């Protein structure tokens, strides 16, 4: 019984790792640009397909595919922001967020136009689980967690320690003052969009590895990604990882009491519980 419960927790951590990387991207953009960029789902999909092209069409190994995904999704993020979202920023964060929703529909269909609906897979081996002390742990998922932690540390340290990172935080806190001080808000926006959406793209490859690649790849996971970012605290980089693991564990633990078909539903109830106790998320905002 204890073993079964432990396995559930482990499964939950494993399920959560896949959400962590895109959640970091989402929350980083929120931290600097102060709006939820709802077009994240389509950038996840773009990354998944970019990785597919690199891996299957060009024959690159996994690391190469991830890199291509990062760059492709990051560039897409910058271009989309410049063309669509930036001109709307003066109208307010909410309007920009709504436009991002329309944007995600557009981008998903650009991908569908180019690639069609067929499910595809990477040309990469699937690793068997490790058996540790009677418990199953996914090898791939441990890698995912490692990637998530590396990404989290990189972004966190960047924002907290480097000069550019501090400039970005300045823009987030007080754009006018930052501009007076010589920080270029446009450059900051481009950088954070590149990194944030690039991470979404990497997340897309990870999701594609575990599931399949098609225009809906991003859309299927996006609610859980948003939930992860929110639970951890919007704007908090470590919060994204904590939130992702919490959402994952919450959904799996629900299996103790409810049938599996209810997993997502319970996930959201769990999020609500967390937010009732801590309305700003587990790590609150601005934990960088």
């Amino acid at each position, binding site marked *: 019984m204890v073993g079964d419960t432990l396995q559930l927790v482990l499964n939950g951590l494993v399920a959560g790792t896949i959400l962590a990387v895109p959640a970091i991207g989402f929350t980083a953009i929120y931290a600097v640009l102060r709006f*939820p960029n709802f077009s994240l789902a389509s950038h996840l999909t773009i990354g998944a397909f970019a990785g597919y092209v690199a891996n299957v069409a060009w024959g690159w190994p996994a690391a190469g595919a991830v890199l291509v995904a990062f760059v492709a999704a990051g560039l897409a993020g910058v271009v989309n922001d410049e063309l669509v979202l930036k001109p*709307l920023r003066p109208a307010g964060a909410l*309007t920009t967020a709504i436009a991002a929703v329309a944007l995600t529909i557009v981008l998903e*269909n650009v991908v569908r*136009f180019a690639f069609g609906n067929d499910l595809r897979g990477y040309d990469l081996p699937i690793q068997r689980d490790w058996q540790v002390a009677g418990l199953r742990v996914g090898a791939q998922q441990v890698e995912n967690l490692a990637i998530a932690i590396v990404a989290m540390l990189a972004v966190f340290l960047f924002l907290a320690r480097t000069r550019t990172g501090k400039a970005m935080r300045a823009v987030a806190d007080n754009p006018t003052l930052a501009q007076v001080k010589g920080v270029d808000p446009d450059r900051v926006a481009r950088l954070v969009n590149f990194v944030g959406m690039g991470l979404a793209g990497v997340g897309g490859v990870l999701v594609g590895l575990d599931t399949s690649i098609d225009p809906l790849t991003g859309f299927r996971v996006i*609610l859980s990604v948003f939930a992860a970012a929110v639970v951890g605290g919007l704007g908090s980089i470590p919060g994204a990882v904590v939130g992702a693991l919490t959402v994952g564990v919450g959904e799996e633990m629900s299996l103790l009491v409810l049938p599996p*078909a209810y997993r997502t539903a319970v996930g959201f109830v769990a999020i*609500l519980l967390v*937010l*009732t106790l801590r309305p700003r998320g587990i790590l609150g905002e601005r934990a960088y």
Partner: protein
Amino acid sequence: MENYLVAMLTFAGVYALLALGLNVVWGMAGMINLGLVGFFALGAYASALLAKKAGWPMAAGLPAAALVAAGAGAVVALVTARLRGDYLAIVTLGFSEVVRITASNEIWLTNGTDGISGIPGPWRGRVSPAAFNLIYLAIVAVAVVAVVALLERVRRSPYGRVLRAIRDDEQVAAVAGKPVRAFKVQAFALSAAVLGLAGALYAHYTSYIAPEVFAPLISIYVVLALTAGGTGNNHGAVLGAALVVFFMESTRFLTAVLPGISAVQSAALRELLIGAGLIVVLRVRPAGLLPERIPGVQAR
């Protein structure tokens, strides 16, 4: 052809009601509700079940649906009371998914993914389908007019002023002695009532509902409709809804005449154009086609 236009106008009317409902809670009270399709579903199921299992006529089912949805709205508002803006958005999105999943799995109540078919409609089967369509358009049109009139009264009343004050700065409103939470809960309930009414009207019109109908995409389209039409403006809500339905339907004809692309590409292009069209509207008029008009303040 006329039948098609009548039907599309009816759908536009249902979407208009959804946008009006969203306007109450978002445009007027400043709370973003991305889970509006959940209340739409609750109203639809309430009226459908009352009609099929208890034999209630639609005239009784509609207000019942509104009440059920309003109750749910109040509960959601109470539970999410401390949540702010973006957090509320994502939690409400989750709410609509919870409704959909529950409807899919509680087969004893909702018939699960099989859905509820054969929902009676006024004079359905006793008049020709074309006549039924026209009658129903009239019913929906009356509903839209009535709701617009009601919400305009609310907007211009002192109650509406308090809601706007809460929307613009909650702390100031609280300091001014207004029971902020009570107002927010009422606004949510009122909004949910309108959404539930829309759901009931939809159920009796199409005679069939299933969990798959109530997908988050509808919430997205309604949010886009309200933003494009003009958040805060009831007429904007109706206009935005008509615009969204117009985009959804006219793109059908447009992509059909394009040569040389495959079926998937044509479908993708169509959805792309719907999204792109709405982005263009937002770019051209960021405040929406019909911006909010504050009563007592001269329009810009």
